[in-house]
Every structure is written in structure tokens, then in C-alpha cells.
């Protein structure tokens, strides 16, 4: 990795849910200042759990980090509250949207700016979010629960941006978004990263997109990091191509033809 500053250093963490279910079995990863790092992996690999461990949202799921350490700019953060982390600029966009159902879209966004006080800046930021997601502007006054899945996803991402973060943990940002918007979202990520130096750690299933925009990637499988490397290298790796990009053997296989094709079942492990 380039000799950039490491903002986030996850060191061999183990996570257990409910005192019995061991999910992460020693995960280590690093995120450099101003980088975009992707975590890839199949369903249940532990991506979400890793992000929850970092942002300290495990408690509400009755999970806990039992081994290892997490450092943010050299400071141990396992015992901070999520709110403390937001103050330090780390915001998570949770998987499955989690909009405030009874608040309107606009109130949701404003709630995202809870930690900030400058009214002018907040208003400017709100405008920025509305230009990113014009659909939100038209739906600004409806309660979040009554917007479509994609609109809620936009709302969740926009809400995180409202906190003016220095580091964003994105959990499946592309889920349920129309292709145009997916591209839009990744452009926004790139944009924020380039212009404002925001660091991103994203868990994604859309490997194609993720590797296109990220600098570095980690691939997880059943609670372990099984491979990591620069995004470009990963994109050229044969296994990755076959399992995550669907272009094994050079050609993109039509979804129509997967029928007769049985692959190794690894996720059942």
C-alpha cells in the first residue's frame, strides 16, 4: 500500500453475536486517508458486521468485539459511543436504509446534521444533497416510510452526507437503486473523495462498480479476509472475475445460461 496516512486500522477483530455466534474470525484491514476501500464478499461473509464493529453499532444487535483492536487515527475507538465517532467525522450508512419513518425526507436530512450548528452551512449542504438526488427534492415533504425503496436509499446516503463527515462507512449503497442512480452514487463518492478528501469504506455486492471506483479492496468469506489488493489487481484476478464479476473465462456469461451451470458452493461452509 502507498505510504499514505492510515486513518482506520482494524486489527484482528473477532465478533460474537448473542454470546454464542462467532461471526468475524480475526479480520484486519486498513483504510488510508483520502482512500476509497471496498469490502467485497458473498452473503453472510461478515461485511456488515465489520462495519458495525467499526462504528460501534454492534451493541444494539447484541454483538460484541471480543478480540483485536480498532484504531482511528491512532486512537482506540472500541469503547466510544457511535455519537462520539460521528463527532470524529465517522458516519455509517446502514444496510437496509433505516430512514426515520415518521419524519419527512427533509427532516431526515436535517436530522443528519444533528452534530452541526452553523445554519448557513447546513442549508448549503442540504442544497448539495438535493442537487445530488433531485428525486429527493420532489419528495421532500413526504414521510420517509411512504417513499419508494430507492428513494429511501438516497435519503439514507444524503443523511450521512449532511453530517459533513471525514470518513463514511457505506453499507451496500447501490442496493435497490436504478442503474443511473447507482452510477450517480458512485460519482458522488468519487466527487466527495476528490474534492473534499472524504475517506470511504464501502461494503458492496456490486463488485463491478466497487472495483471501478475503489483504490483498494478486501475480499471476505465466512468471517475472514481471504484476499486483498489494489482494486485494479483484484479486477484482473481470475477467481474474482469468475465469482464476483461473472466474467470467468473471459466472456460475460448470460444469466440465461447459468441454469445448467453448477458451481462450487462455498457459502454453505
Amino acid at each position, binding site marked *: 500500500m502507498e505510504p499514505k496516512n492510515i486513518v482506520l486500522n482494524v486489527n484482528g477483530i473477532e465478533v*460474537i453475536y*448473542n454470546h*454464542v455466534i462467532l461471526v468475524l474470525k480475526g479480520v484486519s484491514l486498513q483504510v488510508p486517508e483520502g482512500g476509497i476501500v471496498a469490502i467485497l464478499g458473498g452473503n453472510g461473509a461478515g461485511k456488515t458486521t465489520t462495519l458495525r464493529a467499526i462504528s460501534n453499532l454492534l451493541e444494539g444487535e447484541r454483538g460484541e468485539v471480543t478480540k483485536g483492536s480498532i484504531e482511528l487515527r491512532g486512537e482506540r475507538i472500541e469503547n466510544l459511543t457511535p455519537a462520539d465517532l460521528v463527532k470524529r467525522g465517522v458516519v455509517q450508512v446502514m444496510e437496509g436504509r433505516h430512514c426515520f419513518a415518521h419524519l419527512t425526507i427533509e427532516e431526515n436530512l436535517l436530522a443528519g446534521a444533528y452534530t452541526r450548528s452553523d445554519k448557513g452551512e447546513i442549508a448549503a449542504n442540504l442544497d448539495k444533497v438535493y442537487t445530488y438526488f433531485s428525486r429527493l427534492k420532489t419528495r421532500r415533504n413526504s414521510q420517509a416510510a411512504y417513499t419508494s425503496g430507492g428513494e429511501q436509499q438516497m435519503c439514507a446516503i444524503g443523511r450521512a452526507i449532511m453530517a459533513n463527515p471525514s470518513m463514511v462507512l457505506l453499507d451496500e449503497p447501490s442496493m435497490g437503486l436504478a442503474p443511473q442512480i447507482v452510477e450517480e452514487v458512485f460519482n458522488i463518492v468519487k466527487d466527495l473523495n476528490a474534492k473534499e478528501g472524504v475517506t470511504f469504506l464501502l461494503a458492496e455486492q456490486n463488485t463491478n462498480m466497487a472495483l471501478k471506483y475503489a483504490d483498494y479492496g478486501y475480499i471476505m468469506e465466512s468471517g475472514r479476509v481471504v484476499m486483498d489488493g489494489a482494486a485494479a489487481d483484484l479486477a484482473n484476478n481470475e477467481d474474482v472475475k469468475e465469482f464476483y464479476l461473472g466474467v470467468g473465462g473471459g466472456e460475460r456469461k448470460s444469466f440465461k445460461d447459468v441454469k445448467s451451470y453448477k458451481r462450487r458452493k462455498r457459502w454453505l461452509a
Partner: protein
Amino acid sequence: MLYRENGQFKTSYRSDQQIFPIAQDRIAIGLLLAVAFVGVPLFASEYLYTSILIPFVIMSLAALGVNVLVGYCGQISLGSAAFMAVGAYGAYNFYARIPGLPLIPTLILGGLCAMFFGILFGLPSLRVKGLYLAVATLAAQFFSDWMFLRIQWFTNDSPSGSVSVNNLKVLGMALDSPMARYLFCLSLLAVIALLVKNLVRGAIGREWMAIRDMDVAAAVIGIRPMYAKLSAFAVSSFIIGMAGALWGFIHLGSWEPAAFSVELSFRLLFMVIIGGLGSVMGSFFGAAFIVILPIALSRLLPTLGDLVGIELSTATVSHVELMTFGGLIVWFLIVEPHGLAKLWSMGKQKLRLWPFPH
């Protein structure tokens, strides 16, 4: 690794669908039943029967009923004591007005009265949900309080509203000893618990849980919310009504409407939450917790006080008892928000892995 299911292969769906698919569980339950039916009568004192075991068994039955409604069907009810009252007074009326009516049909008739009452007050659940419904069920509670105080007919014109029964017989045997009463209640509990277990692991149970977890999706796959909710109300209030009748007939012998006050409704709700929503086992745990803990505390605390050399007055004991009780509730919830039954199953899971931590 004592507690393992490894090597216990299921060769048919029938065997996989047993109530206790794991042999160790079956043995444990067998032992438990043996202890309850045979072991306990060997040593239990009258006090143990009348003050601990009988209330525990009857309250378990009531909690089981509440659990069907609250735990399985997700309709929080604060009117459970009203269903008990209807069961008790219903049974009383049949008993007093039909000479020679045997006890078991009497109890069942009481249960049926409660069932109709339950369905009636369950009707709003078709429209009203969640906490709104919970509070609305208090209407049933206060209405029944009033009804049995005010409408003399229900209390067989007893001027005070207090009624009593005696000389109970079951299948020709007099229920005059505490042991007989205990065994009678226990048998009823065992039978009903089995029936409830069958229900909740069958189609109707799945309908209830589906309504509880996500009613819109349930409707889309063809579950009728009305049928599911009202059947839960019916089954639940039938069982609660039976428990109420037992409470009046067997435990109290003589009772007034205040025996089924809103306080009892709350206690029944605690039982299922503390024990574990949606768990038959949880109903027993919850009943044990709520019935036995206060008594244990009121007996233990003075002794504890003596140990550290302070003499506690009854008032202090009961205040400390309230505080300990409240504190323990909170503590258990923090340890395991899903109740004692969950704690139990997690314990089993650990045992399964033992001696490895994961």
C-alpha cells in the same frame, strides 16, 4: 460434550417434527414430569402446595394462555385478568345453578364463557394495533371489574359480590387435600400445554406468528388477519378462563372481583415477557419468577437482614421486596431481552459446544 445432537439422525419428517427432537431433551422432560407428578408429592408440605405449587401451576396455565395471544399472535393484552374473572364467575354460575354438574365440564364451560368474552373484546384488534390495542384491552378489564361488582346475578345475588365454592369432586374423588388439588391442576396444565404446543407448531400457530411478525405480508400469502387474530383471542381466553376458574375454585375457594384486578393483568403480562414471548417453556419460567420471587423475597429478606445484624420491619421488607423485584426485572431484561426461555436455550447452545467456547 454431554448435550449433543450429533449422531441423532432423523430418518423421517415425523421424527424431525417431534416436540423434542433431541433425545436428551426427551429424557429431561420425562424426568421433569416424573418429579412433578411423583417426586413432589413425596416430600411437599401443605404450605408448599397451597402457597407455591398450586398458584404456580395455575398461573403457568394462565401465562400459557396469555402467551398465545401476546407472544404468538403479537396482540398485547392488558385485560387477561378480566378473562380469568369471566372464566371464574362463568364456571361459578354453571356450578351453582346446575346442581350436580361435574367439575371438569364446569371448568370447560367457564373457559367457553371467557372465550366469548375474549372474542368480543378481541374485535377491536382488527383495526386497532400495538400499544393502542394494549390500552384498549384495559376496557375489558375495567368492564369486568364493574360487571361482577354491579350485576348481582353473576354473583348469585350474594350481597357483597363475593362468592365461594366447596366440596369439589373430580371423577368421584374429593379434591380435599392440597396434594389432590395440585395433581388435578398439574394434569390439566400438562394436557393443555401439550395441546398448545401442538397448536403453535402447527398451521394455526404459524398463522399467528405470521400476523405478529408482518401482517401485511401474511395477508398477501393468504392468511386472513381476522381469523388468525380472533382464533388467537379465542384460544387464549379459553385457556385463561380455565385458569381463572381454577384460581377461584381450587386456589382461593372464595373470591371477590378484586381477586382479578388490573394488577393481576399486569402480572400476567410480566410473566410472558420475563419468561419469553412466544415460548411455551417461557410461560412456566415467567410464572415461576412472578409467583415465587415475591414470596421468596419476603421470606429471605428478614433472614438476610438478621445475618447482617439489622432487624427489618415488615414495612421495610416489603419496600425492599418491591425494589428488588423491580431491579431483578430490569436486570434480567438487560441480560436477555427475550426472556428466561431465551436464556435457557442459549445455555443449551453453550452446552452443545462445550467445552469449546464457540
